[in-house]
C-alpha cells in the first residue's frame, strides 16, 4: 500500500498540468462547500443568539387564543395569570394602533413590556428613565420608515378594551439597533403598565417571556420552549443547506467527472506501463489498487491545495465577516449586517471524507478494467 502511494504520487506529479487542473477544480469545490456551510453555520449561530437575546428569551407562554401568525387574534388573545404563578416572567401585551408622523398614517403594533426586565436586550431602561408622558422605543427600521428620531413627538391612536378609539401624543425615548426585524418593523415598545392603563386591560398580557428553561403549565396558556420558538429559523437554515447542497453536488460532480475522464484516458494510454507492472510481478489487483490510489490522491492534493488558499481566506473572513445586503433584513430574515462564518472541525473533516471517498470511487470504477486486461496485449499496447 505504501508503495502504491509513492508510485501514485510520482505518477501524478509526473503528469503535470492535467493533475493540477483536476486538483484545482476539486479543491475549489472543496473550499466552496466549506465556505458556504461555514457561512450558513455562522449565520445560524448569530441569528439564534440574536433571536434569543432580543425576541424570545428562554421560552414563552402564550395566551391560548393568541397566534403570532394571525394578527386578528391580537384583539382578544390576552389574559391574566395569577400573581403567584407569574413569578420571574416578563409580561408583554400586544395592541394594534396607528401613528401619524408628519401627516402620514402608519399602522403599528404596540407592545407593552415590563420596563424593569433585563432578560431581553431591549433598552427598556430608557422607558423607565424618560420624563415624557408616553415614552416609546422603536427600532432603526421603524425609525427609518416613519422618519422619526429620538425626542420626536407623534400622535398615536388605539382602541381600548371596549373598542372605543382614543389618541394621545407619544415621544420617541430611544431607537435600538438589532438584527431581529420581528421586534422592529412596524412596532412601538412602551411600558406595559401605561399600555394597560390606556386600554383598561389591567394585569392583562398576551404572552410572557420566561427567564428559565423550565416548562410551565398554566391553565389557558400554552408553553413554548426556546427550541420550538427557534424552529422557524432552524428550518430556514436547513432549507438553505439543502438547496445549496445541490450546488455543491453539481460542483463536486464536475470535479469527479474530470478525475474519471483522466482515469479512463490514462488507463488507455498507459497500457504498456500496466503490462510492464504485471510482467515485473505485480498482480492485476495491485495495479488496480495503484491506479485507484492515484485517483484518490487527487483528493489528498486537493485537500492540501485547498488548505493553502482556503485557510487564510477562511481565517480572514471569520475575522472580518461578510457584508450582507439589506434586502435580506427587510424580508424579515434574521441576519446580521456582517455574518461571521464559523468553520467547525466536524464540517471540515466530513467534507474531506466526502471528497476523498467519492474521488476514490470514481477512480476505482475505470481502474477495474485493468483486472480484465490481457497482460500480453497490454505490454504491446494493443488494447483498444
Amino acid at each position: 500500500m505504501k508503495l502504491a502511494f509513492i508510485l501514485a504520487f510520482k505518477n501524478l506529479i509526473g503528469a503535470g498540468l492535467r493533475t493540477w487542473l483536476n486538483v484545482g477544480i476539486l479543491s475549489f469545490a472543496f473550499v466552496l462547500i466549506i465556505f458556504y456551510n461555514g457561512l450558513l453555520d455562522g449565520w445560524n449561530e448569530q441569528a439564534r443568539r440574536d433571536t434569543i437575546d432580543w425576541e424570545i428569551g428562554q421560552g414563552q407562554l402564550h395566551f391560548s387564543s393568541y397566534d403570532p401568525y394571525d394578527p386578528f387574534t391580537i384583539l382578544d388573545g390576552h389574559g391574566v395569570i395569577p400573581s403567584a404563578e407569574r413569578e420571574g416572567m416578563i409580561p408583554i401585551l400586544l395592541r394594534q394602533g396607528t401613528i401619524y408622523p408628519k401627516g402620514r398614517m402608519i399602522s403599528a403594533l404596540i407592545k407593552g413590556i415590563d420596563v424593569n426586565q433585563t432578560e431581553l436586550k431591549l433598552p427598556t431602561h430608557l422607558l423607565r428613565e424618560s420624563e415624557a408622558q408616553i415614552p416609546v422605543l422603536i427600532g432603526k427600521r421603524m425609525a427609518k420608515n416613519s422618519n422619526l428620531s429620538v425626542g420626536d413627538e407623534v400622535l398615536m391612536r388605539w382602541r381600548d378594551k371596549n373598542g372605543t378609539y382614543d389618541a394621545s401624543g407619544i415621544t420617541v425615548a430611544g431607537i435600538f439597533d438589532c438584527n431581529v426585524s420581528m421586534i422592529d418593523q412596524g412596532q412601538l415598545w412602551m411600558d406595559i403598565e401605561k399600555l394597560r392603563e390606556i386600554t383598561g386591560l389591567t394585569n392583562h398580557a398576551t404572552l410572557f417571556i420566561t427567564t428559565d428553561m423550565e416548562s410551565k403549565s398554566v391553565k389557558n396558556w400554552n408553553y413554548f420552549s426556546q427550541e420550538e420558538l427557534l424552529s422557524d429559523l432552524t428550518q430556514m437554515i436547513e432549507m438553505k443547506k439543502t438547496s445549496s447542497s445541490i450546488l455543491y453536488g453539481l460542483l463536486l460532480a464536475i470535479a469527479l467527472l474530470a478525475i474519471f475522464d483522466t482515469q479512463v484516458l490514462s488507463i488507455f494510454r498507459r497500457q504498456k506501463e500496466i503490462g510492464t507492472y504485471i510482467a515485473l510481478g505485480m498482480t492485476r489487483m495491485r495495479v488496480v489498487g495503484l491506479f485507484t490510489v492515484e485517483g484518490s490522491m487527487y483528493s489528498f492534493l486537493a485537500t492540501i491545495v485547498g488548505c493553502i488558499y482556503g485557510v487564510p481566506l477562511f481565517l480572514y473572513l471569520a475575522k472580518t465577516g461578510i457584508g450582507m445586503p439589506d434586502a435580506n433584513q427587510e424580508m424579515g430574515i434574521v441576519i446580521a449586517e456582517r455574518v461571521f462564518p464559523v468553520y467547525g472541525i466536524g464540517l471540515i473533516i466530513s467534507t474531506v471524507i466526502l471528497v476523498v471517498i467519492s474521488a476514490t470511487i470514481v477512480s476505482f470504477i475505470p481502474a477495474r478494467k485493468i483486472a480484465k486486461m490481457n497482460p500480453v496485449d497490454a505490454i504491446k499496447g494493443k488494447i483498444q
Partner: protein
Amino acid sequence: MSEESIISIKNVTKRFPVGDGEFTALREINLEFTTGEFSGLIGPSGSGKTTLLNIMGTLDSPTEGEAIVMGKSVSKLTHRESAMVRNMHLGFIFQVYNLLPIYTVYENVEFSLLLQNRSAAERKQMVMDALEWVGLQDMANKKPSKLSGGEGQRVAIARAMVKRPDIVLADEPTANLDAKNAHAIIQTMKKLNREMNTTFVFSTHDEKVMGYLDRIISLEDGKVIKDEWVEAKFSIS
C-alpha cells in the same frame, strides 16, 4: 552447467479466437530448457516465438498441454501465484524497452525490488550492481527519454537482472539497435549468463544474436522444425 530442467513445455498447443474461428499459434510443442542455457527461438514472423515466450513467462497459458516453469504448471497458477513467479524468478526484456517514463533509470531498475519488499540499503546495493553490469552507473538519475536506444535497452537488462532471476526471457532485444549496440547488449547478457548461470531464452531474427547462442530452436507455423545445439560463432572476451 547443471542439467536440471528449469522450463518444460509438454505438448503445448495455443489457439487464439479470431473472428468466428480460431487461430492456432503453437502446435504440440515439446521442449526442455536446462539451467544456464543460452538459447533462442528463431523463425519467420508469425511463427509463434512471442506466444511461446509469453507462456514461459506465465503471462499467458497454453490451450492444451502443460508448461512447467520453476516446477510450477503455468495454467494452474492463480494471478497472485503467477505474479509471484514473475517477481521472484523471471526477468523480461522487450523489443521496445517498456521503461516507465516518469521514473529515473535508478527507479526503473529498483522497481522489482520494491515489489519484493527489500530494505533500502539492499535495494541500493543491488541497483548499483545491476547498473554496473550494464555500464550505466553514471546514468542513474536520468529519465529514460534522455537515453539513446542502446542505453535504454541496457537499462531494461539491468531491470531484468537486478533481482538475479533464474530465467530471462528476451523478445527480440536487439531489433531496434544498430550493430555495435546489438553486439554490446548480447555480450553483456552472455557475460551475465556465464557469471550467474542465469537461463536465457531469446526470440530473434537477428543473425548477430544467433551467433552467440548455444542452442537454436527453429519455429515455423507454430511447430518446432529444428532444435540443435551449436558452437557459438562469436565468443566473449
